[in-house]
């Protein structure tokens, strides 16, 4: 090993505290990057493999009732490879020991042959046998939530009749990776489950003999799914088709792909911050190292080392820091990525999970981080390279402080000398002061951004569930029911108020833009389920026209006063031009509302309902649930309280964990920045501080000089960090915005307070570590040595 290499290693060891602090910041960036990239990679790989192995379809369509021979026409569509028809219906289930009605999605499976598409990954037991209409396979999460296993029984109201079902198997399906019940926002495995029954059994139960109401298609490689969707729509329209959709719009897949996209977004924004700060820190530390080693550099050059040797020496130091950061980050990232993927696997149900991250994610992270380290080292390396040997042997001139207008201010003149030293240091090194302030500010910003999610979720719950919704229970029906059903429901035990709702599936068009959306009819003045603006006002529906969410207005590019073409996909399938009379802001979905009677006129039918919202006496819940379970054709029962709980629990499970990761990363950031700033300042001013100690200044007084400067910068960083946090949060909120939900940008004052407090504690800890060094200053050495 050459002498220069040995020097490198010893420098590295001597500055290990600072190296580690920078590496920690870098590792945070690498960790987030590796985590996001490996999670993306494994989720994608898993999904692709799963979809491939179990024949996940490419196009899906639902109809009211189509004879089986329509399938032949579908098969003739160019680009179609396979067609599989099914019977799919929802039913109310009664699970022993669970008082609330459970909604089951009953999906048919062929009894005599294996399914071509959307095959089941059987986890336990077997598929239903031919001629055994009471046999059912349960979706694994649902079975687990209720501890049901093959051999157990449950009851279902199928077409108005109670049927006892026997569990024969437990399975997963690529169609239900993310299984979400009708009207729900989050998967709730206790209240919603998928059951697979024999095709013949379901045909018989729902009067669909020789017919189907659901079809899946697989297309040939290279075929355009949207073109196939168009063909399918035309063929199925006479049979009550409500619009076919491609895999990209399939609910479970949409959620999964959306999750992957969000991970990808995460992998660009946050690592950039950490790596930028790490580059600045490398710049600071290496700059100081070169300044301290001026004479050594001169000596080496005098001995005949080339400028390139010297440059390479310091560049290696930066690469060394980068390497430690990358190795640490790889480990953290691998672990986090694995954890992240497992977390996804709890929410998204796969029969297997491929976590075999390839070298790509690690290589990208390493390249980006080492690049950042080298970039940070550039200035210092260049200084070292161009330093003329003769000049390098002379000590550097003392920093030229000058009188400034600032120094002559009356205020400054009244300050004591230590405070003046402190202020002049800040003004003398504006770049470094900026980096320190910016670094601490960024860590606070990351904290604000991370913790903002918790505020946003609480706000969403508050606005969406608590303020907007006044109902306790919502009862949905598979088919539109006459308005009398509302009266029937009002007679059920404990029901105090009811409110009807009619949802109509439709295509909304404006120019070339099209959006599939249910138009929801509500009473003009709603008591329970209210059209509620995010700003907190309930909207009254005008007697005619559409009231749409701003998200839908954006998607269709319409303004109040424009007309939308509404193509109803149900009943007589009327087409009408309807004006937009108002817009409102909402966080979830892109709904469109209309007055209930106006909607009935548009449908050219008598008023009907698809859901009834109920306000219920809490004491009568049990009897009410029992009555609801027996009600025919109920397709969903949503209990608001349970929905809120599920929403909160699911969010808490995922978000809280990520927030805590980011708290750790942000602390590493604040620590890395402060520690390095203090160490560099100590290295430069150690002699000055030791001199003051000799002159009779106490430890506290010299700490004030060094740490006071840091404290000043940290306090400047607090408001900046909060502002930057708000900006970063809005950036991330925008990046994470989807058609389905938008996270509101809400930051509570407590969140700012907590972020600042955590940032200050991290800063204080690193300051205390440096303070310990201040206590060990060598007072005697300063008397003799020249800097």
């Amino acid at each position, binding site marked *: 090993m050459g002498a220069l290499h040995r020097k490198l290693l010893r420098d590295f060891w001597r500055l290990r505290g600072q190296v580690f602090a920078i590496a920690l910041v870098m590792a945070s960036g690498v960790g987030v990057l590796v985590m996001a990239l490996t999670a993306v990679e494994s989720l994608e790989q898993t999904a692709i493999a799963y979809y491939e192995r179990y024949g996940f379809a490419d196009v899906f369509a639902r109809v009211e009732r189509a004879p089986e021979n329509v399938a032949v026409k579908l098969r003739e569509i160019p680009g179609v490879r396979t067609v599989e028809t099914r019977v799919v219906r929802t039913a109310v289930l009664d699970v022993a020991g669970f008082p609330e009605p459970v909604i089951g999605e009953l999906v048919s499976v062929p009894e005599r042959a294996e399914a071509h598409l959307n095959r089941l990954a059987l986890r336990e037991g077997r598929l239903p046998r031919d001629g055994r209409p009471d046999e059912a396979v349960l979706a694994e999460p649902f079975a687990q939530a209720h501890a049901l296993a093959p051999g157990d029984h449950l009851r279902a109201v199928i077409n108005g009749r109670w049927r006892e079902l026997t569990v024969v198997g437990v399975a997963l399906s690529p169609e239900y990776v993310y299984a979400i019940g009708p009207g729900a926002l989050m998967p709730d495995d206790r209240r919603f489950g998928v059951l697979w029954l024999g095709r013949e059994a379901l045909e018989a139960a729902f009067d669909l003999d020789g017919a189907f109401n659901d079809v899946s298609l697989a297309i040939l490689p290279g075929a355009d799914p949207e073109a196939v969707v168009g063909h399918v729509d035309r063929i199925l329209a006479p049979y009550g088709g409500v619009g076919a959709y491609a895999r990209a719009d399939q609910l479970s897949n949409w959620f999964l792909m959306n999750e992957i996209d969000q991970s990808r977004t995460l992998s660009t924004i946050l690592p950039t911050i950490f790596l930028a700060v790490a580059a600045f820190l490398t710049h600071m530390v290496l700059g100081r190292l070169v300044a301290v080693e001026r004479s050594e550099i001169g000596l080496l050059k005098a001995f005949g080392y080339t400028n390139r040797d010297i440059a390479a020496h310091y560049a290696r130091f930066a690469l060394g820091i980068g390497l430690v950061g990358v190795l640490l980050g790889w480990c953290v990232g691998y672990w986090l990525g694995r954890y992240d993927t497992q977390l996804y696997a709890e929410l998204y149900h796969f029969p297997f999970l491929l976590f075999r991250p390839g070298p790509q994610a690690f290589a990208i992270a390493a390249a980006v981080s080492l690049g950042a380290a080298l970039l940070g080292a550039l200035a210092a390396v260049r200084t070292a390279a161009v330093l003329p040997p003769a000049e390098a042997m002379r000590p550097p001139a003392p*920093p030229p402080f000058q009188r400034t207008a600032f120094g002559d201010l009356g205020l400054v003149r009244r300050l004591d000398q230590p405070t003046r030293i402190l202020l002049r*240091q800040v003004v003398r090194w504006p770049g470094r002061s900026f980096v320190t302030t910016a670094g601490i500010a960024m860590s606070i910003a990351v904290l604000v951004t991370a913790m903002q999610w918790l505020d946003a979720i609480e706000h969403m719950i508050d606005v969406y569930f608590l303020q907007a919704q006044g109902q306790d229970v919502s009862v949905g029906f598979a088919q539109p029911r006459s308005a009398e059903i509302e009266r029937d429901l009002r007679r059920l035990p404990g029901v105090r108020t009811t409110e009807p709702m009619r949802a109509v599936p439709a295509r909304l068009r404006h120019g070339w833009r099209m959006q599939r959306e249910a138009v929801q009819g509500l009473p003009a003045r709603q008591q329970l389920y209210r059209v509620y603006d995010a700003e907190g006002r309930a909207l009254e529906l005008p007697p005619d026209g559409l009231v749409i969410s701003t998200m839908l207005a954006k998607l269709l590019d319409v303004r109040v006063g424009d007309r939308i073409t509404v193509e109803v996909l149900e009943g007589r399938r009327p087409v009408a031009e309807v004006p937009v009379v108002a817009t409102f802001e909402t966080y979830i979905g892109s709904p469109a509302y209309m007055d209930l009677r106006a909607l009935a006129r548009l449908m050219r039918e008598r008023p009907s309902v698809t859901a009834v919202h109920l306000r219920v006496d809490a004491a009568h819940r049990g009897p009410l649930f029992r009555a609801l379970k027996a009600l025919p054709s109920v397709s969903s029962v949503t209990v608001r309280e349970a929905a809120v709980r599920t929403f909160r629990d699911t969010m808490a499970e995922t978000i809280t964990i990520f927030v805590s990761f980011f708290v750790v990363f942000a602390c590493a950031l604040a620590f890395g920045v402060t520690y390095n700033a203090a160490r560099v300042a100590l290295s430069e001013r150690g002699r000055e501080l030791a001199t003051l100690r000799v*002159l*009779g200044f106490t430890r506290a007084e010299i700490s004030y000089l060094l740490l006071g400067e840091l404290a000043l910068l940290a306090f400047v960083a607090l408001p900046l960090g909060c502002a930057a946090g708000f900006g970063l949060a809005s950036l991330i909120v925008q990046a994470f915005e989807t058609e389905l939900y938008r996270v509101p940008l809400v930051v509570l004052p407590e969140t700012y307070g907590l972020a600042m407090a955590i940032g200050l504690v991290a800063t204080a800890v690193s300051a205390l570590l440096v303070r310990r060094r201040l206590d060990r200053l060598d007072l005697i050495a*300063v*008397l003799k040595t*020249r800097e």
Partner: protein
Amino acid sequence: MIDSGRRRHWLAPAPHSLHDGIVRKWEPSDALRFGRVLRSFPNWRGVAGRRTMAAMAKRPPTLRARGLCKVYRTGEVEVHALRSLDLELGTGELVVLLGPSGSGKSTLLNILGGLDTATAGEAWFLDHELSRLDDAGLTRYRREHVGFVFQFYNLIPSLTALENVALVTEIALDPMPPAAALALVGLGERLHHFPAQLSGGEQQRVAIARAIAKRPDLLLCDEPTGALDSQTGVLVLEAIERTHAELGTSTVLITHNAVIAEMADRVLVMGDGRIHEERRNARRRPAREIAW
């Protein structure tokens, strides 16, 4: 104890003495005397040597050391920097410590200045034993009683000459105005210059002004001319000579330059951790007559 009533630095502890017994020995006449210093400014060279040895001998010694030993241990090696050294420094006395590198002069100065503690033996400042003081006590001792002048000036680059002096007067009990201290070393015209704008000799004189502005009982100068040429060095020695004469501060000056010894009342020659030789100068030679 005298509370000057002056504004103290906000971090400074309340006025106090080292131990309960220590009382600053400044009389009210200080102020008068200081006025005289300022008045005599244009022709201050003649002041040296005005005090008589006899007058000084009556006062108790400022510093006493008995059997001082200092052993440095680095790994297996033991270095005996001081070997049972005895010393006395009279009040108002100017002593020059001569000796080659490694003779232990700096170690002795560090112990006397409260920067280091002896391995064995005792060192007394008036009636207080330095070896018994803890870190806070030593800090207080340095703060209230000792003035330091370093070889490499050790000025704070971010403070002007005036502010460098004010740095110390702000935490002292009964200091002179910083401008007056700078005037005493002949820098009344350069109050608002930063160290980078001053020559080496000027920087060292600012350092002397900083050391004496608190009216220390003890002025310790470690190779104050070591980094300077002869001409500039003399200016610095004149400043030390003058402040010693005007303020009557007991002064110890370390040097390896034997010529400088001629300006002392007493010369101690050190070698191998002991005082080899002690001699009194019959006449103190004024600094301006010294050259090397």
